[in-house]
């Protein structure tokens, strides 16, 4: 039985269990469902879960564990002499797997099983045969590899058989067991809800695990980096000047400055524009305008950043240079913090506008009425009553926008340039941490050099930095939040 079929069978069993469980529950109180502790559906859920969850877990576990078990068994069949020089056990195993799959195809193409069993690699052209069914093998097949492949194939088959039997048995056991447990006073709802809760908890754990994973994957190489580059220089040097052949200056300060500066300008554009759009849409605009404009603005978030990058490079950059920077004598570079910031700001407008709009919309009308009834203008109402009530959501939206801005590369590369610089002048080129992470990681420099590894240290530092910013934001929200009823 193949996997898809097995899962289908288990699910069918479970659905049947749901129906039977429900019926049994109803029958146990002779149709008077008021006597049941929970709604009949919940009894069905319990049976469904008892049938499907353990058996599917077994299937998943089996699939995860089986290859390792079988491979270790088959690997014993391969003598060290069968492994060509420079190759490795794992490569030979790859061949074994490919041959085994090929044999399946050969059988499917009409070779009887018994003939296959007596087939030997040294007497027949296995490679040719396999090529005939479209399975390419890199080189000729030695006999022990061929035997291993046959063994592998049969092991897989019997293992699959065992898995099917086991899974079905567990499903049926779960089904029977849960059906016997159905009694009117059985707290089926609580049981289902406990299961649901564990799913909810598991889901939130994923976010935590992601963090652990990120920190772990950055930490190792960061430590490596700090072992070959002094941390004090990294954190306190104001020069960022990586070189090809070593001897680079890798000070993070100009990058952090650029990141904060560009993000700040981006927010300076996105927050007023986004928030005002959100306010207009939720408080003033008619339903039909809102229905059209909101999704339209959201398209801004979906335009690939490369388009924004080109927009910054070709349109906004020269515009700012020719109309603002040059006349005021502040600079003559077409790529500047200003350019990148403005364009990035446009990109993140929908983060602020759409999310805030939803939150503002969720503020109860009675609050607005209260304010309007006192003779406040709509704008006063919005500013003094609605926005404070919607604050947590709005701050969340702004943080999300800021996060997006901090993580952006393409716009910065094209709009702000690649020069790391500590300067207050917004019309000069600068660059950000993220840009350097990408460029150092994907460059032509050697991987084990500080020039590449610095990317990990940059990532980790940025992580800590944004963490601090987020904590500050949380504290502020806690302080000013106004909880409505």
């Amino acid at each position, binding site marked *: 039985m193949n996997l898809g079929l097995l899962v289908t069978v288990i699910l069918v069993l479970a659905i049947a269990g749901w129906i039977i469980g429900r019926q049994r529950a109803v029958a146990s109180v002779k149709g008077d469902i008021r006597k049941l502790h929970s709604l009949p559906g919940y009894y069905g859920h319990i049976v469904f879960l008892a049938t499907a969850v353990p058996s599917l877990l077994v299937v998943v576990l089996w699939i995860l564990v089986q290859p390792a078990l079988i491979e270790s068994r088959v690997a014993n069949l391969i003598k060290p002499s069968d492994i060509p020089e420079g190759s490795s056990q794992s490569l030979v195993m790859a061949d074994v797997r490919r041959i085994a799959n090929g044999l399946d195809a050969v059988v499917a193409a009409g070779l009887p099983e018994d003939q296959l069993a007596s087939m030997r690699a040294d007497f027949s052209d296995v490679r040719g045969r396999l090529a005939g069914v479209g399975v390419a093998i890199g080189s000729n097949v030695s006999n022990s590899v061929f035997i291993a492949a046959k063994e592998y194939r049969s092991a897989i088959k019997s293992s699959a058989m065992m898995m099917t039997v086991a899974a079905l048995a567990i499903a049926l056991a779960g089904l029977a067991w849960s059906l016997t447990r159905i009694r009117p006073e059985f707290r089926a709802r609580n049981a289902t809800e406990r299961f649901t809760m564990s799913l909810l908890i598991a889901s939130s754990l994923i976010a935590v695990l992601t963090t652990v994973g990120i920190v772990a994957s950055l930490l190792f190489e960061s430590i490596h980096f700090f072992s070959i580059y002094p941390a004090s220089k990294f954190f306190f040097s104001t020069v960022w000047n990586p070189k090809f052949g070593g001897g680079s200056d890798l000070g993070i300060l100009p990058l952090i400055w650029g990141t904060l500066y560009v993000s700040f300008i981006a927010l300076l554009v996105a927050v007023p524009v986004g928030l005002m759009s959100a306010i207009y849409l939720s408080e003033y605009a008619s*339903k039909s305008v809102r229905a059209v404009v909101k999704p339209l603005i959201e398209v801004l978030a979906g335009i690939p950043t490369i388009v924004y990058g080109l927009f910054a490079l070709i349109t906004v950059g020269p515009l700012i240079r020719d109309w603002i920077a040059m006349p005021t004598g502040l600079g003559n570079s077409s790529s500047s913090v200003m350019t990148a910031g403005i364009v990035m700001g446009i990109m993140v407008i929908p983060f602020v506008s759409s999310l805030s709009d939803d939150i503002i919309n969720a503020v*109860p*009308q*009675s*609050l*607005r*009425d*209260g*304010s*309007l*009834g*006192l*003779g*406040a*203008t709509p704008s*006063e109402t919005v500013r*003094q*009553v609605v926005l*404070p*009530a919607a604050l947590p959501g709005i701050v969340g939206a702004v943080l999300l926008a800021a996060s997006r801005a901090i993580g952006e590369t393409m716009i910065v590369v094209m709009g702000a340039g690649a020069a790391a610089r500590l300067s207050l002048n917004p019309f000069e080129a600068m660059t950000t941490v993220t840009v350097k992470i990408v460029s150092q990681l994907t460059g032509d420099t050697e991987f084990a050099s500080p020039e590449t590894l610095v990317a990990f240290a940059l990532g980790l530092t940025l992580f800590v930095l944004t963490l601090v910013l987020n904590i500050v934001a949380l504290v502020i929200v806690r302080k000013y939040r*106004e*909880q*409505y*009823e």
Partner: protein
Amino acid sequence: MKDQVTENRVQTDTSKISAKKAQVYYGENHAIKDVDVEILDKTVTAFIGPSGCGKSTFLRCLNRMNDTIPSCRVEGKILLDGEDIYDARVDPVQLRAKVGMVFQKPNPFPKSIYDNVAYGPKIHGLTRNKAELDAVVESCLRKAALWGEVKDRLTSPGTGLSGGQQQRLCIARAIATSPEVLLMDEPCSALDPIATAQVEELIDELRSQFSVVIVTHSMQQAARVSQKTAFFHLGNLVEYGSTDQIFTNPKDPRTESYISGRIG
């Protein structure tokens, strides 16, 4: 109290608000039908009538709070000091500054108690400095009979008050802007008798300067505080007249039966 009322009646013959053939629709639902009424200055007018008859709806017409309900449509004329408040030139904000409102469901802002009351004076710029504002807040809370209970927790949120306290907070908030007309939708529904008496006293006091419209389900309350009474039924203004007359000598059989079924 009663004699005070009689005493004052003579001065209050100028009409403050008059409605002419006012109609209100919620979508298809015709909630207010052909209401004609003259609300006099310096008078307390009571709206009575069974639940759902349109009292709140009509009240909300008088300061255009209905504008906030998308499905709501108002026809006919409603004049404030002879000026049509539904005229395009009228700024509802100015209107609402003149015609204040206490809503049926208490809706304190999720701000501190102090800020709730100070909100109106602040936006209208009625005070010159913090001390004045403090004084206004205190006097309003006192008038609304809430000062004693909240004076130690002015900075805690208004939403953390009990139902009756919230209601009084909303009254304090409404009088803090000193409107010319005060619309009160069941201002005492959640109040105990003593607080109710205090609010009624407040209403009587307000009457010396302003016009007050109050919705109530309590006939006694209507009789106690109002000089004029309007009885609504199924969206119609069935009868309107002096409170004495309505309660002692109703002209319409519906008024009669509503009043006589009094249990209240």
